[in-house]
């Protein structure tokens, strides 16, 4: 019986010894009395603080204070542990050679029978490296922030320059253009008896080109104005939007196209810009299928993964897939003015708008077998 008790005690003691050794091996350990005087330190403590054991025992723990933490912090620490509660936190300490180190600290009070702490054990892990990395990261972030501010200012300048450029274009280019058209007309009117058929033909070409130039200027301006607008995102009912688009188009264009609109998804997008996209795509479809005996157009949408994919399909003139890359370029066209009129900016505008929404555009077609234009917008 006594032997058993002894055996159990020996086991307990060995277990405790093993625990202590494991603790000493893996952590930085210090024990102080309730006044904060160091009564025990392990080898790791000596190593990190660069003091010898003799230099530490009997000293106040404040010997390793770095002065980094505010008074409130220290007060709070003491308040916690004298109350008998465990304190956890990160502390910056100062070593003997005046260098600094950071430790992740847990301070555990040992409570006596009266419920008061009689000693404290501090168990720590060296986190100096991690703290340094954190600081470097913060500095990098700050530096990045400054760079962003600088770049934004640069971009704002460029934007302002673009604005005054388009303003110039809008105002200064239009005036001489108006004069060309105006005077050609005056010539025609006032000298019609004195100009022969050929002369009249030449005059009409002058007028036609002046008008084209006006159209080009307007298109270029709306293209550039696009980039500068702020997006206002709402949940757009695409069926309602397309309905409105069709009514608008009917006001301006007479056409025979049969347009089928399926049930469309709602898109989180800028209403005005989406309106522009659908006007351009549907007008194109109508225009390029206008030579067909039975022009038909279909608008549909589907959800593919995280993207909403819309398509406008027609059975018109189509295009050669070899030139598909040119389709969305500004002023790029795959047909001549005689075949189909236009300035070639409609699709470029569509692409710009869809890009602004974080989506992409693409197209498929076959000569004389129709074309399908797609755009996808990620559902955020």
């Amino acid at each position, binding site marked *: 019986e006594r032997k058993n008790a002894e055996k159990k005690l020996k086991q307990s003691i060995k277990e405790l010894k093993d625990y202590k050794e494991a603790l000493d091996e893996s952590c930085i350990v210090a024990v102080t009395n309730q006044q904060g005087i160091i009564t025990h330190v392990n080898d790791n403590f000596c190593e990190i603080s660069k003091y010898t054991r003799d230099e530490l025992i009997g000293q106040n723990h404040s010997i390793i204070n770095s002065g980094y933490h505010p008074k409130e912090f220290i007060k709070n620490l003491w308040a916690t542990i004298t109350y008998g509660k465990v304190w956890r936190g990160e502390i910056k300490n100062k070593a003997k050679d005046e260098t600094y180190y950071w430790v992740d600290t847990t301070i555990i009070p040992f409570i006596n029978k009266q419920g008061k702490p009689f000693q404290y054990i501090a168990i720590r892990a060296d986190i100096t490296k991690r703290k340094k990395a954190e600081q470097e990261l913060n500095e990098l972030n700050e530096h990045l922030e400054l760079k962003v501010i600088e770049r934004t200012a640069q971009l704002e300048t460029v934007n302002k320059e673009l604005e005054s450029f388009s*303003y110039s274009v*809008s*105002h*200064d280019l*239009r*005036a*001489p*253009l*108006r*004069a060309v*058209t*105006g*005077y*050609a*007309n*005056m010539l025609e009117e006032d000298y019609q008896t004195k100009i022969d058929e050929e002369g009249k033909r030449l005059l009409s070409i002058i*007028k036609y080109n*002046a*008008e084209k130039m*006006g159209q080009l*200027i307007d298109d270029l301006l709306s293209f550039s104005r696009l980039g500068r607008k702020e997006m206002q995102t709402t949940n757009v009912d695409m069926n309602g939007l397309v309905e409105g688009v069709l009514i608008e188009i009917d006001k301006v264009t007479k056409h025979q196209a049969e347009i089928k609109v399926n049930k469309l998804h709602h898109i989180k997008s800028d209403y005005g810009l989406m309106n522009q996209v659908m006007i351009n795509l549907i007008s194109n479809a109508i225009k390029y299928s206008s030579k067909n005996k039975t022009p038909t157009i279909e608008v549909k949408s589907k959800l593919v993964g995280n993207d909403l994919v819309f398509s406008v399909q027609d059975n018109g003139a189509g295009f050669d897939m070899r030139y598909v890359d040119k389709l969305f370029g500004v002023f790029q066209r795959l047909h001549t003015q005689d075949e189909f009129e236009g300035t070639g900016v409609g699709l470029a505008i569509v692409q710009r708008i869809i890009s602004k929404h974080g989506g992409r555009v693409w197209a498929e077609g076959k000569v004389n077998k129709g074309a399908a234009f797609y755009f996808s917008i990620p559902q955020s």
Partner: protein
Amino acid sequence: MENIEIEILLVEDNPSDAELTIRAFKKSNVANKIVHLKDGAEALDFLFGKGVYSTRNINNKPKVILLDLKMPKVNGIEVLREIRSNALTKKIPVVILTSSNEDPDIKACYELGVNSYIVKPVGFKNFTDVVSKLGFYWLLLNKSPNE
């Protein structure tokens, strides 16, 4: 010079635009008494009887002033401001007729109390159309204040 009765005061620095405008008014038979001045400074002298116009009867006021915005010396906005801040001229209808389609300009003009803001169309036919409609509206349809 002293007693020319004036119906339209056209303030326009671009001679081609001026010629087109005057021609359009004449063709539509809306107005005959058009005075064309080439810059804002001259327009103000004319309206207030200063400089070369000091002998003009300034109570002989135009029925409507057509004003371009971008002119040398004194621009359209400054002329508008002067017109609107002077008891003699502040009730005269002013129509801005300009190439500029830019919002800041439009806003500024309305804030100064312009009656109408028209952007000159590029196409000639449209331009003559607009001018004759302007003439018809401001000279025949619209009621001017009795003065």
